[in-house]
């Protein structure tokens, strides 16, 4: 069967599906470019509201009622103060929502995060703003907020001068137990990335892959409140001991690029199995940073992380030049909140033009792809193909995924 059918071959307008079924698609009122902030609120009147942080201005965040996953409905959509700021990331505990702000250039505002009371989802109420702006700061890129007490985040600070301008966002812990007055509880940066460090600056990636020594996802779970699992972009996967939040200490720094092409994005621990799932982020179009992978790492000895497998990749020939980015990005992170699905057997991630994909890791040495959904190119997509950016799976096992530019929200059901 070497021959293919005339006119076959992967076409970006084509929808591809295995064991996932589209329940609904919502273009979010024409502002369907969503970043990597997704969280679900279960309201006091038992509605489910999915909150989405936009990829870029003019919109800040959108709340979508997904109580009936087949009929999503926008309940609120908010504006950013100007075009050089983006929200990108948010997290929710109860009726409190944290929204990140990152500016295009250093020294701009707002750069930090907002605390919102979303008790009435239709009218979010600003409680406070935490300022992370500074002469060398672009603010906050990603937040993690799951316990209602501390925000763990990747951000800059007014007092932080990086040794390289690309290394401006580090790991910060902010105490929000008084939501009206957030205060810093601790911080950690990659040795050598702050001016004045005794350690020399780390060896950078070659320019075409240099995406900086910055924190990205900064995850802390109730199973190990004394550990932070951090994707530190070109620094690789980092495990910190945060038993003393004021003085985080490195437990493990696992740098795998080079030889790989940088940008460690998420470090997801599976505690009962002694595993980490480590995802890259693809950041270049047209396959220029292929392969961007998801790795299975044996973390039984946390000071000696050993990669044991990578998730099987979608075929290069079909996707690398399909349009836009093609490769790993966000994972569903088993958020320790009631609205989140939790599994240490099936891992679901977004892969830009390769869509959303689910992997069975019951045998961690041989992950198997068990489901995928690749929406056809959204209307007027600048990439010419879908660019699925983030994914959230709710406790009903409904999969929500979003396009980075224009496609909006896709609601899916897994049939495995």
């Amino acid at each position, binding site marked *: *069967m070497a*021959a*293919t*059918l*005339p*006119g*076959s*071959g*992967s*076409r970006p307008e*084509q929808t*591809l*599906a*295995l*064991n996932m079924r589209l329940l609904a698609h919502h273009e979010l009122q024409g502002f369907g470019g969503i970043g990597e902030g997704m969280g679900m609120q279960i309201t006091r009147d038992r509605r489910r509201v999915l909150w989405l942080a936009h990829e870029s201005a003019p919109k800040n965040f959108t709340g979508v009622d997904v109580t009936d996953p087949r009929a999503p409905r926008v309940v609120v959509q908010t504006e950013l103060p100007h075009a050089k700021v983006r929200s990108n990331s948010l997290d929710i505990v109860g009726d409190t929502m944290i929204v990140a702000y990152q500016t295009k250039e250093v020294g701009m505002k707002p750069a930090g995060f907002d605390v919102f009371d979303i008790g009435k989802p239709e009218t979010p109420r600003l409680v406070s703003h935490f300022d992370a702006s500074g002469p060398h700061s672009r603010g906050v890129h990603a937040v993690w907020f799951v316990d209602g007490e501390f925000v763990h985040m990747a951000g800059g600070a007014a007092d932080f001068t990086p040794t390289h301008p690309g290394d401006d966002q580090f790991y910060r812990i902010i105490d929000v137990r008084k939501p009206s007055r957030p205060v810093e509880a601790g911080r950690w940066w990659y040795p050598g990335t702050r001016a004045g460090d005794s350690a020399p600056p780390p060896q950078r990636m070659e320019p075409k892959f240099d995406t900086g020594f910055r924190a990205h996802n900064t995850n802390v*779970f*109730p*199973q190990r409140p004394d550990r932070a699992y951090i994707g530190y972009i070109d620094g690789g996967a980092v495990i910190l001991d945060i038993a003393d939040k004021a003085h985080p200490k490195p437990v493990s720094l696992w740098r795998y690029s080079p030889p790989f092409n940088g940008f460690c994005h998420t470090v997801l621990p599976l505690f009962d199995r002694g595993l980490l799932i480590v995802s890259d982020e693809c950041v270049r179009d047209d396959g220029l940073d292929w392969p961007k992978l998801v790795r299975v790492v044996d973390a039984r000895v946390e000071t000696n992380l050993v990669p044991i497998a990578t998730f099987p990749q*979608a*075929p290069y*020939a*079909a996707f690398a030049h399909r349009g836009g980015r093609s490769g790993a990005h966000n994972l569903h992170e*088993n958020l*320790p909140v009631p609205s989140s*699905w*939790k*599994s*240490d*057997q*099936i891992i679901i991630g977004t892969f830009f033009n390769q869509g959303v994909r*689910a992997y*069975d890791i*019951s045998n961690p040495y041989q992950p*198997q*792809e*068990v*489901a*995928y959904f*690749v929406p056809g190119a959204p209307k007027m997509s600048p990439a010419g193909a879908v660019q699925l950016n983030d994914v959230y799976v709710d*406790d009903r*096992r409904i999969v929500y995924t979003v396009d980075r530019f224009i496609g909006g929200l896709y609601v899916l059901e897994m*049939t*495995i």
Partner: protein
Amino acid sequence: MAPSPAAAADLLASRLPVTVITGFLGSGKTTLLSRLLRDPGMNRAAVIINEFGEVGIDHELVEASSEQMTLLSNGCLCCTVRTDLQETLRELFVKRRAGEVIDFDRVFLETSGLADPAPVLHSLASDGLLGAQYRLNGVVTLVDAVNGMGSLDIMPEAAKQAAVADRLVITKTDIADAAAVETLEARLHAMNPYALISRAVDGVLDPDSLREITPASMRAMTQDPNRWLMSAGTAGAGAPGEGGSYLGQRIPRTTGTHDAAIHSFCLWFDAPFTWDALTASLQVLTALRGTDLLRVKGIINVEGEAGPVVIHGVQHIFHPPLKLERWHDADRRSRIVFIVRNIPRASIEALFGAVGMLSRA
């Protein structure tokens, strides 16, 4: 933190079902398939056939065609086996992932009339790559009412095809003598009383009847898994007092065996198996008599498992056992259907006795 419900993959639902269609030469596989291809409900099926020429596809149905593949206007994909079947199935899946063929949701596989179906079933069980993507839905064997008797008499492959079937379809009943059809049906029933027998006229068979021959999900049991083990007519056979074989009670068997070499029976076990006892018995059985175990299908109560364990083997190769999440009804007895050649039932009973199951029954 407790994992969410359905946190693991469903090893049945996550694999694409493969239905093997086999049958004697001239039994009407071609007619049946060309009918199936035209069915609107088949719009996401991939059909693998031996040669295009065999299946007469109307030209107006053909949307696109290459040497080995044809896409029909209803979406159905038809392709021919190139070198070997495993390669064809693998390539089909790779092309599906790459969007080069439709995202088919099931496969129908036609074997050649002379073929022994066992190797096809083996390749699904023993090829790791295939096993991860496909599962066997079942074997459908076509027997034509006009020549079927003759084929059964003279061709061992024909008898084997009938013996391994989950569904037996008698074709050409419209041109055969009614009494002959009855005789054929009785003979098939005697050889393989655990297959559902139906009749097709001019290739008309409801495609839905080929869905979910075996359980399609480990969780949401849409139908009684017993249906896979045995057809409605024999569902009760083998239960105590109903004339079947009941291990430990020695009830005389009532299923006659006209085709002396091939016969079948169902063994029932009151006490749960241990994993050790189950594996040991199956290993000994396959090691000693693998070649003559034409088909073994069982629903097993294994100690410590919440639901039944489904076992399935063809000759010396067993698929990995599958754990279903829960029992379908209150009956917790293990039951194993054996379709064998030249193995007395007593030997198999003795074997289970030797590993301790008999005395516990």
